[in-house]
């Protein structure tokens, strides 16, 4: 035994330790490499190819910032940036309180039928974004049943855009806020009650601060969604220009890819800023969560519960009502001149050569995206969280995984054409087929799945792998026997999320489908463009029916899976 009796500095420096990675750690490091390379191939390189267009002219010569100079001297383009900003901000300001009180009612009150309200809130996620737009035209258009409600304001323009955006963004905000409020610490309420604080004061000093990072996250998600969405402004925006439609205008209208790339970069800026703020908020939140929090059990309170119920009924009523209007719209012969009900609109062969084939293509695509994506995303998140942490790879992988959230689907789709269709690209073989659509959807929707997986993995004891290693059990066995079974609900959530989004997306895939891979959501756009509004509504409702069925199956199967793999949660 020897505790240092000499000043340490006098002893020659001891050897530097070169830690050896175990075979398992080496394989995990390799896995991180493969994941990073794959994501780079599927995201960074295509985006790089696209963005390089912003610095060159039509002939392909490098022109420095000339395109940007043209951009800032075109006043109309500035108008679009301003419109994007203020509609995004206003939508956020409208959605957040609505979603907050909805989530509050679900988690902090004793209203009945919470299961129903939880299901109703998801409807907008399950439908293509054209569905609310079509329903709004039926209701508030110039021939609409409720057109007087807009006080003479035209629907086509910011009013319609914001109404449709509020509808489609609501569930995203409500989901995040329900989680934020659901995980709050009940002990603080006990303390507040002990101090005899008035309800309003408790709300202002306990409820709001506890949910503040949830609020920041929700606000940022909504803002980014509105900012990057192009479907709604295109259909219902009239002449109202926003950045997302400007990309469309530059690329599709004027065939100016270089300026399109410039607008794409401008569009990335607020999205990236929002993303950085969100990361900051995430870090704050991790620091505030305590492992000993007690879940909060609301006590009955007639006034609060009554208001909450009213709020939920109104919101759910609007969500269901708009959906109902869309379904009704899909059954009428010709709006508004022939309201006879018919199922003819569902004979898609009469409206689009792909017919029902488009629906099956979508189902096939969505299934592949879910089946490949959920395990892959989860495994990569695990490699990242529990694999070797040294070196630059984990950091780069983390950043890359978060980027897709900030990239509008249209921009990504365009990047895919330019990159994968390049003659020098060996992956060009997949172009035009299902594979490229699957890859594009996976990348486009990667981030949310990744964050879900990370959250699930972080809830596990960080020492599971260490225990396994001390028992000389390979880390992959621990992954298979412990990590995956515990996280199975999260993996299913990711799969369903991917399925639903692959079913409903338009912007990510509009440049990429081939003659045999036309998708249902694209058929909705085409039918709407061809003036077949009822058939478009019918196709949108078909998509909604499929996604809703999958979601219901998920809920039902969730019960079975829980009984099979989550029995240990019961005390």
């Amino acid at each position: 035994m020897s505790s240092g009796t000499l000043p340490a500095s006098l002893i020659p420096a001891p050897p530097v330790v070169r830690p050896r990675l175990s075979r398992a750690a080496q394989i995990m490091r390799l896995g991180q490499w493969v994941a990073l390379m794959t994501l780079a191939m599927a995201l960074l390189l295509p985006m790089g190819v696209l963005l390089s267009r912003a610095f060159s002219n039509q002939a392909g010569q490098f022109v420095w910032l000339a395109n940007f100079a043209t951009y800032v001297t075109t006043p109309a383009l500035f108008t679009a940036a301003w419109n994007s900003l203020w509609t995004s901000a206003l939508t956020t300001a409208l959605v957040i309180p609505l979603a907050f009180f909805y989530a509050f009612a679900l988690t902090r009150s004793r209203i009945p039928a919470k299961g129903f309200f939880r299901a109703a809130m998801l409807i907008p996620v399950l439908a293509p974004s054209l569905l609310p737009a079509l329903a709004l035209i039926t209701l508030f258009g110039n021939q609409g049943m409720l057109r007087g409600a807009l006080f003479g304001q035209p629907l086509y323009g910011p009013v319609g855009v914001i109404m449709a955006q509020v509808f489609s963004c609501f569930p995203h905000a409500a989901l995040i806020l329900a989680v934020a409020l659901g995980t709050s610490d009940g002990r603080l309420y006990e303390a507040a009650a002990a101090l005899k604080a008035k309800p309003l004061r408790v709300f202002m000093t306990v409820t709001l601060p506890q949910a503040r990072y949830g609020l920041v996250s929700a606000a940022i998600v909504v803002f980014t969604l509105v900012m990057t969405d192009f479907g709604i402004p295109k259909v219902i925006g009239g002449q109202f220009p926003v950045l997302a439609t400007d990309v469309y205008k530059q690329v599709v209208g004027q065939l100016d890819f270089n300026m399109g790339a410039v607008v794409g970069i401008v569009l990335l800026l607020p999205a990236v800023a929002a993303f950085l703020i969100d990361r900051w908020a995430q870090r704050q939140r991790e620091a505030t969560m305590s492992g000993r929090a007690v879940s909060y059990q609301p006590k009955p309170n007639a006034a609060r519960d009554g208001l909450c119920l009213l709020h939920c009924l109104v919101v759910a009523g609007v969500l269901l009502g708009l959906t109902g209007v869309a379904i009704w719209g899909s059954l009428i012969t010709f709006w508004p001149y022939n309201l006879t009900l018919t199922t003819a609109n569902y004979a898609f062969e009469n409206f689009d050569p792909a017919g029902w084939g488009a629906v099956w293509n979508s189902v096939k695509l969505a299934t592949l995206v879910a089946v490949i994506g959920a395990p892959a995303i989860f495994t990569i998140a695990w490699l990242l969280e529990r694999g070797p942490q040294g070196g630059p790879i984990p950091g780069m992988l983390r950043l890359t995984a978060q980027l897709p959230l900030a990239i509008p689907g249209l921009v990504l789709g365009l990047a895919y054409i330019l990159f994968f269709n390049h003659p020098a690209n060996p992956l060009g073989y997949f172009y035009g087929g299902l594979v490229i659509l699957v890859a594009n959807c996976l990348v486009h929707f990667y981030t949310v799945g990744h964050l879900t997986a990370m959250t699930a993995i972080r809830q596990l004891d960080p020492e599971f792998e260490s225990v396994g290693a001390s028992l000389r059990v390979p880390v992959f066995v621990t992954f298979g026997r412990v990590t995956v079974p515990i996280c199975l609900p999260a993996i299913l959530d990711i799969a369903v999320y991917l399925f639903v989004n692959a079913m409903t997306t338009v912007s990510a895939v509009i440049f990429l489908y081939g003659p045999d891979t036309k998708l249902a959501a694209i058929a909705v756009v085409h039918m709407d463009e061809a003036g077949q509004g009822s058939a478009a509504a019918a196709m949108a409702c078909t998509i909604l029916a499929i996604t809703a069925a999958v979601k219901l199956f998920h809920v039902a199967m969730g019960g079975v899976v829980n009984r099979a793999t989550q029995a240990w949660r019961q005390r």
Partner: protein
Amino acid sequence: MLKRALLALAALTATSAMAEAQTRTRLMVYTALETEQLAPLKAAAEAAVPTIEIAWVRDSTGVITARAIAERANPRADVIWGLSAFSLLQMEAQEMLEPYTPRGAEALRPAMRSDRSPMTWTGMDAFVSAICFNTAVAAQRNLPRPSTWADLLNPAYRGQIVMPNPNSSGTGFLTIAGWVGAQGEARAWQYMTGLHENIQVYTHSGSAPCNNAARGEYAMGLSFDMRAVTLRNQGAPLEIIVPTDGVGYDLEATAIVRGTRNLEAAQRLADFAVSRPAMQLYGRWYALLALPGVESTVRGYPAEFEQRLVSQDIRAMANERERILREWASRFDGKSAPR
């Protein structure tokens, strides 16, 4: 789970490869034709040229053009059949079209085929800008029926007209190209400035004005004739007005994509596209055909329809396109904010 997914993936790629291995040459054909025209055209072409099989990729003019140009480095389409001549001229400028004079193409109207030799594109039919006039709404709001472009300046129409934004829509460009061709550029700008007062909305999409007029959202939409015919057949109370003071037109045209791996089959399809049977088929939907002597079977067009077309130089317009659009944007797009 992953393994099974990979197997499924492999199976999928295998089946698509098998489809290509069939005896007929599969041609990837890009088009912006109306969806209901695709099936009859495919059937007729495959019957006339038994060695080919057509695989359509259909989208709106803008999307399909953007896609073709983005794919320039490694073209996927073999043939473009049914796309605006303006789009084809843009592609020609980027050396994307394979020169080939289809058999019998010399018989086409000179204004409706490529002026190069060998030709880079051949016309199919002309479609013209038109006014989709909702008679039900007009009756309700007491609006007179316009018969000329000049009539649209009537103050009674304030806020009743929609037209596509030419910066995002080919149809929009076609319409203003017609005004420039008929009135000369200076007077055309003057006209548009006056018309601007009556316009409710410049829509992003070219089909939206007529669709909106058909649904009664607006009294009239400026679009093209073909769209209006389709909607009226669905039961919309639309009258299709082809103004008598000169209308701009666009051609639907055919071209072979340079770099096609199936040049021989593509040429056979290009031959068919200018043949009399094909023209008769186009005549089911379009009023003016590229091959003289083929009668359109579409009803409702005025007899002297052909005379209403302005004399416009498509190539000159294509060259001026960028300048005109920029000018338009600076005059009207800046005011696009809601009124």
